[in-house]
């Protein structure tokens, strides 16, 4: 997922379990959406046990990024358009 490297991201959590990542989003962000594995955020296909929580904080998108050797990272990326797109998916 080379595109993550080109993003201006902040690591909110590192080397976490998937559950820690989901719990962190639900505990720290009032606004979030639940998506299924394989859902595309930016150019990242999210990995995890459904439902996967993606946090929204103003123009920031907070989402899990999983690598086989390093567990799950929670990344925070500022992007007005992606935040608006995700917000529009909320029911």
């Amino acid at each position, binding site marked *: 997922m080379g595109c993550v490297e080109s993003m201006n991201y902040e690591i909110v959590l590192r080397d976490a379990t998937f559950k820690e990542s989901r719990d962190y989003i639900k505990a720290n962000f009032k606004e979030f959406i639940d998506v299924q*594995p394989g859902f595309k955020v930016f150019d990242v296909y999210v*990995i995890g046990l459904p439902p996967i929580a993606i946090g929204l904080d103003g123009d920031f998108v907070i989402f899990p990024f999983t690598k086989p*050797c390093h567990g799950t990272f929670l990344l925070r990326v500022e992007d007005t358009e992606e935040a608006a797109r995700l917000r529009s998916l909320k029911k």
Partner: protein
Amino acid sequence: MEGDTTAKPETALLVLGCPQVPVQTSIALYLINRLKQTGFVPVVAGNKAANTLLVVADPDRHYLGEVVDLDRAVAQISDKKRDFDRCFVFIHNDAGVSYAATMGAISKAKLYAVVYGEHYEDQVKKIEFPCTIIAAKAVHNPLPLKKALDEVKPWAA
């Protein structure tokens, strides 16, 4: 494949985890061989290190067939551009469980969770999605996991 009337061979995807536990490479080659013997076309998906361990161990490709990048495989299956009949996910850590759950959600393949490592029971407890679990405490010695595979015979019809 469902709806396919031609006699295409069945396909199997092996999703490799982090190669830090030695038995993974050995068991992957064993499983590939068994699958090929029963007519499956195995495809391996892993990160660069996991794939390279296999490619270097089998330079003439006696066992290995197609080897793909894990992220690319996830993308293709998520986008419905490709799918498999069976999927084996190698699990020894939390990320492995996440990948298995993902494959269960995005693929129509019959899913097998191949769980190993020092703390394999902790990972088994996290598996709450439909799949066949093949598990053993195996780190350096692949025989306990080979035995567990042989008991299930996932390469059989």
